[in-house]
C-alpha cells in the first residue's frame, strides 16, 4: 500500500491529492492569504477614492465627518477587537482539543459580530433620520466647516462623503455578514466534533478572514469618524 493511503487512513480529513496534512494545511493557508491580498486591493480602490476626495473637498468632508457618532463608532471598534480575541481563542481551543471552549468562543464571536451589525444598523437609522443618506432627500444645510465657522460646507461635496461612508461601511458590513455565515458553519462543524489538533484548518482560515475584516475596520474608524474631531 502506498504511504499516502496509509496516512489517509490515519486522518480522514486528509484529501487524496495532498501528501500529508501539513501540506494540505499550508496550501489552504496560502490560498487564504492570496484571497486576502485580492481583498486588500478591493478595499484599496475605495481607500484611494477616499484619499483623493478627502484632499479635494477637505473642509466639506471635515464637516460631514463631524456629524458621525464617535461613541457608536468607538464601541463598534471595541466590539470587533473583542471578537478578534474570541476568534483567536477559538483557533487555540481547536488546536488543543478543547471542544467546549471552541464552541463557546465561536458562539461569542457570532454574538459580537451580530452586535456590531446591530450598532451599525442604529447608525444607519440615524443617517436616514438626519437626511444624510445620499439621494433625493439628502440635506446638509448650514453646517459650518471645521476651523472656518463663517463658512458652510457644500452639501453636494458632503453628499460624496456620505456616499463613500455608506459604500465603505456597507461593504465592510457585507463582509461581516459573510463572516457570520462562515462562523455559523464552523460552529456546526465544531458541534459535530470535526476538529482536532491534527485537523483544524477551517477554524484557522475562518479566523484569518475575520481578523482581516477587523483590520479594515481599524482603518475605517479613524478615517471616517475621527479625522476632523479636534476643535
Amino acid at each position, binding site marked *: 500500500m502506498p504511504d499516502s493511503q496509509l496516512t489517509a487512513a490515519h486522518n480522514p480529513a486528509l484529501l487524496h491529492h495532498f501528501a500529508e496534512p501539513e501540506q494540505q494545511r499550508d496550501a489552504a493557508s496560502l490560498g487564504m492569504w492570496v484571497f486576502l*491580498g485580492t481583498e486588500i486591493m478591493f478595499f*484599496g480602490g475605495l*481607500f484611494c477614492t477616499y484619499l483623493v476626495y478627502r484632499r479635494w473637498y477637505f473642509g466639506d468632508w471635515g464637516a460631514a465627518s463631524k456629524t458621525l457618532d*464617535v461613541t457608536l463608532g468607538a464601541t463598534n471598534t471595541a466590539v470587533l477587537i473583542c471578537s*478578534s480575541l474570541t476568534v483567536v481563542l477559538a483557533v487555540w481551543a481547536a488546536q488543543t482539543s478543547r471542544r467546549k471552549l471552541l464552541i463557546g468562543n465561536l458562539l461569542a464571536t457570532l454574538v459580537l459580530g451580530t452586535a456590531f451589525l446591530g450598532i451599525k444598523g442604529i447608525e444607519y437609522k440615524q443617517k436616514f433620520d438626519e437626511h444624510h443618506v445620499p439621494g433625493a432627500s439628502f440635506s446638509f444645510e448650514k453646517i459650518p466647516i471645521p476651523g472656518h465657522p463663517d463658512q458652510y460646507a457644500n452639501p453636494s461635496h458632503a453628499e460624496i462623503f456620505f456616499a463613500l461612508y455608506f459604500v465603505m461601511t456597507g461593504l465592510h458590513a457585507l463582509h461581516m455578514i459573510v463572516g457570520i455565515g462562515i462562523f455559523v458553519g464552523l460552529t456546526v462543524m465544531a458541534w459535530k466534533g470535526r476538529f482536532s489538533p491534527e485537523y483544524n484548518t477551517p477554524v484557522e482560515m475562518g479566523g484569518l478572514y475575520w481578523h482581516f475584516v477587523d483590520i479594515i475596520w481599524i482603518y475605517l474608524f479613524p478615517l471616517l469618524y475621527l479625522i476632523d*474631531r*479636534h476643535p
Partner: protein
Amino acid sequence: MSAHTSSPLKTYFGIWITLLVCTGLTVWAASLDLGRFNAAVALTIATFKAILVALFFMHLKGASEKLAKLVVIASLFFLLLLLVLSMTDFATRTWS
C-alpha cells in the same frame, strides 16, 4: 504551523488589551488640535493596531511558510503603488 508549543494565551490577552487601549488613545488624540498631524497620528495608531492583529492574531509572526509572508508583502506593495501613484498624479495636476 498549527502546533504551538507553549501556551500563547498571555500574548493573546496582552494584544487584546493593547488594541483596546490604542482605540481609546486614538479617540483621545482626535480631540486634540494637532493641525495636520491629526491624520498622521490616527493612521499611525491604526497601522500599529493592524500590525499587532496580523502578527499575533493572524499568526504571521510564527508562520512557517515564507510564501504567506511574501503574499502579504506583495499585496501591500501593490496597495502602495495604487495609493502613491494615484496621489502623485492627483497632487501634480495643473487643474484647480
